């Protein structure tokens, strides 16, 4: 949720008061500490940072060149990010689903994805959004993060083995030229390739600028004179590495900066190692900042990232001497020169990250279960409204799957929207059972429904359905419809169709809940009426709706799509046959003077309400089922029969 909006609105204050049970002054103080102060610090930090940058650029043109190198490098990463976003439309979702169902696969995916996009932060942000939208389990997410830590070490190898040995800017220029031309094309794939090429070009150019800057800077000032040896140096430079990564928001950029500085002799090998360890810790802080606005799974993953990188750093710092000795031995085997410290640093970086994974991998499931206990994910908690009494809650529900974090990628956004709609469906089932004077556990149990209906009491002491709608349905519907309009482009045709169908289904569900209100009023009035036929008809209405909801809840869990297809059709058929105007039952009641004349209109209207509610909930359940089944089911979805086709079947 937008924090700035929260600052201006009094609804935030009201929410804080309600949730914490405190007075207005305390709520103001809490808002100041949680919202106003962080925002003030952010602005202050930005101003100081910009002034420091401009001041250092004015002080030395070499620093200006290094700074420009870092800026160009970071811009290149943004451009590559843009390029990778283009290749979507279900592909990313499919790739993730087939490559992360086992821990070793998610580890491999993390290594590969990070090697390709050269940004562990990007991979962790994507993983957080996948987790938040419900596409991934926490164990798989942790596996990806472990893999990303190994994958990010390939960047150091590329720079030290290739970037510093050849004139990298010579490759950057053609990439930029071709890339920019492709970016201007209208075809999505060409545009995407263009962004990736431009990104790579800028990465190379950034490295070149940093290298040149450090070389020139060496002539002016020798930073290596400020080198600190021993444990103090180790801890101090680890801290520098953390700070540099938090500022640049990229461990990869920090590492490139370290390697170029090491190549120019501006930092010592020992201090460069400490800086690299610091960069590993710093990258988790970036992830934690990213997870602040995320939901429970995002926070769980950020915590796992911190634990993993923290443990790896502790191990690396504790075993620093044996690790450096191991690097020396391996460097000899690999044929590195004795003075080739950039390659040795890359080797060290890879070794300590692999060591971290080897140490932590056996505890991955344990870590996930501890984090799940510490940071509780209550997003799938069901709403229960006790039918025998009014609802005592006053707070309205807020979306739990849809957030800013998931709105960066169409697949992830769509998945989060589907999860949120599932939650709205769940709340609607609770509200509708309540309106039918039933507990949802009675509705969902295996006990015969007629027994539950007989045992439940029809009474006046209930909360108004409108109030429940405003509390449990409308806020979710608003968030869902807003999110469907903000899904990032491009989307595939199937995704477009799914979104459209979901929007229609949401409208249906909202109207179904509203219709239940009208039905509830007359169920209360006529359920125990002295006229047996009238009372029986209202009991039938109640039974038909309760049984439809019960059956739909079951069908939604069918693993077999064909079975679900048939079961939905059967429900639709039953609904059509239950129409008392069509099947002649109303005529019988009227012709036989079985019901009082003044109830005929009510009965006819209520039968229509009953039918409408049935069709609407059926529509939502079907749409939800097919949306959950994934994209390659469009064809099966198209076999759904409409009312006319089903009527043909019934009446020949």
């Amino acid at each position: 949720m937008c924090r700035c909006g929260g600052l201006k609105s009094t609804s935030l204050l009201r929410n804080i008061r309600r949730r914490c049970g405190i007075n207005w002054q305390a709520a103001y103080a809490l808002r100041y500490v949680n919202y106003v102060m962080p925002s003030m610090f952010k602005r202050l930090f930005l101003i100081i940072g910009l002034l420091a940058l401009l001041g250092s650029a004015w002080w030395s043109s070499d620093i200006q060149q290094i700074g420009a190198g870092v800026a160009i490098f970071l811009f290149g990463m943004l451009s590559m990010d843009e390029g990778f976003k283009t290749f979507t439309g279900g592909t990313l979702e499919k790739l993730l689903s087939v490559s992360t169902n086992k821990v070793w696969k998610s580890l491999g995916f993390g290594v590969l994805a990070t090697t390709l996009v050269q940004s562990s932060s990007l991979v962790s942000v994507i993983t957080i959004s996948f987790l938040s939208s419900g596409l991934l389990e926490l164990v798989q997410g942790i596996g990806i993060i472990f893999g990303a830590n190994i994958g990010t070490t390939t960047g150091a190898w590329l720079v030290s083995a290739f970037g510093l040995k050849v004139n990298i800017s010579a490759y950057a220029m053609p990439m930029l030229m071709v890339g920019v031309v492709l970016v201007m094309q209208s075809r999505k794939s060409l545009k995407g390739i263009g962004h990736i090429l431009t990104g790579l070009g800028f990465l190379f150019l950034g490295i070149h600028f940093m290298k040149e800057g450090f070389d020139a800077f060496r002539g002016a000032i020798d930073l290596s004179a400020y080198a600190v040896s021993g444990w103090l140096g180790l801890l101090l430079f680890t801290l520098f590495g953390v700070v540099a990564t938090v500022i640049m928001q990229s461990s990869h950029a920090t590492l490139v900066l370290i390697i170029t500085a090491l190549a120019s002799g501006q930092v010592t090998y020992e201090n460069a190692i400490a800086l690299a360890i610091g960069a590993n810790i710093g990258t988790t802080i970036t992830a934690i900042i990213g997870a602040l606005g995320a939901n429970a799974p995002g926070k769980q993953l950020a915590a796992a990232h911190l634990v993993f990188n923290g443990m790896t750093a502790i191990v690396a710092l504790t075993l620093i001497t044996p690790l450096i000795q191991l690097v020396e031995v391996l460097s000899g085997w690999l044929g590195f020169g004795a003075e080739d410290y950039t390659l040795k640093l890359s080797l060290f970086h890879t070794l300590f990250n692999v060591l971290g994974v080897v140490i932590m991998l056996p505890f991955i499931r344990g870590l996930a279960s501890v984090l799940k206990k510490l940071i509780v994910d209550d997003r799938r908690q069901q709403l229960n409204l006790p039918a025998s009494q009014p609802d005592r809650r006053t707070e309205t529900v807020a979306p739990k799957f849809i957030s800013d974090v998931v709105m960066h990628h169409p697949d992830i956004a769509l998945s989060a929207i589907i999860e949120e709609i599932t939650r709205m469906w769940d709340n609607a089932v609770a509200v509708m059972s309540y309106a039918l004077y039933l507990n949802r556990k009675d509705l969902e149990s295996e006990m015969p429904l007629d027994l539950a209906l007989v045992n439940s009491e029809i009474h006046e002491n209930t909360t108004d359905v409108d109030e429940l709608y405003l509390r449990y349905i409308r806020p979710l519907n608003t968030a869902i419809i807003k999110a469907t309009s903000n899904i990032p482009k491009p989307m595939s045709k199937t995704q477009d169709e799914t979104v459209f169908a979901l929007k229609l289904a949401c409208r249906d569900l909202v109207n179904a809940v509203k219709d239940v209100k009208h039905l509830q009023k007359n169920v209360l009035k006529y359920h125990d009426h002295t006229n047996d036929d009238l009372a029986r008809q209202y009991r039938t209405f109640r039974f038909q709706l309760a049984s439809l909801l019960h059956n739909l809840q079951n069908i939604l869990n069918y693993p077999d799509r064909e079975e679900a297809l048939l079961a939905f059709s059967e429900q639709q058929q039953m609904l059509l046959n239950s129409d008392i105007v069509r099947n002649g039952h109303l005529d019988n009641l009227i012709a036989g003077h079985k019901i009082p004349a003044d109830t005929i209109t009510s009965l006819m209207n209520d039968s229509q309400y009953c039918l409408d509610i049935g069709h609407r909930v059926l529509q939502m359940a079907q749409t939800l089922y097919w949306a959950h089944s994934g994209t390659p089911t469009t064809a099966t979805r198209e076999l759904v029969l409409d009312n006319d086709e089903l009527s043909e079947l019934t009446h020949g």
Partner: protein
Amino acid sequence: MAEQHDKPRWLKRLKKLMRSSDENDREKLKETLEKLKYKANELKAQLDDADTEEEKERLMKKWALVNKHRKKGMKKLLGDD
């Protein structure tokens, strides 16, 4: 004669993954129709063995429903050709 090698599993999976959604839909539709055909045959067999009229009627209705879905699917498949 050169020995005929099967394509490796990973290549098959990669091809399946890279297939367009239209191709996937067609494949899926064929698969669904196969399953529905199997279901219709199964229901027919159950219908022959049904003891009561009520059971017969229930199975008959379900069988008609399966066939209605199949008919719609066949139409769609032929329409795509």
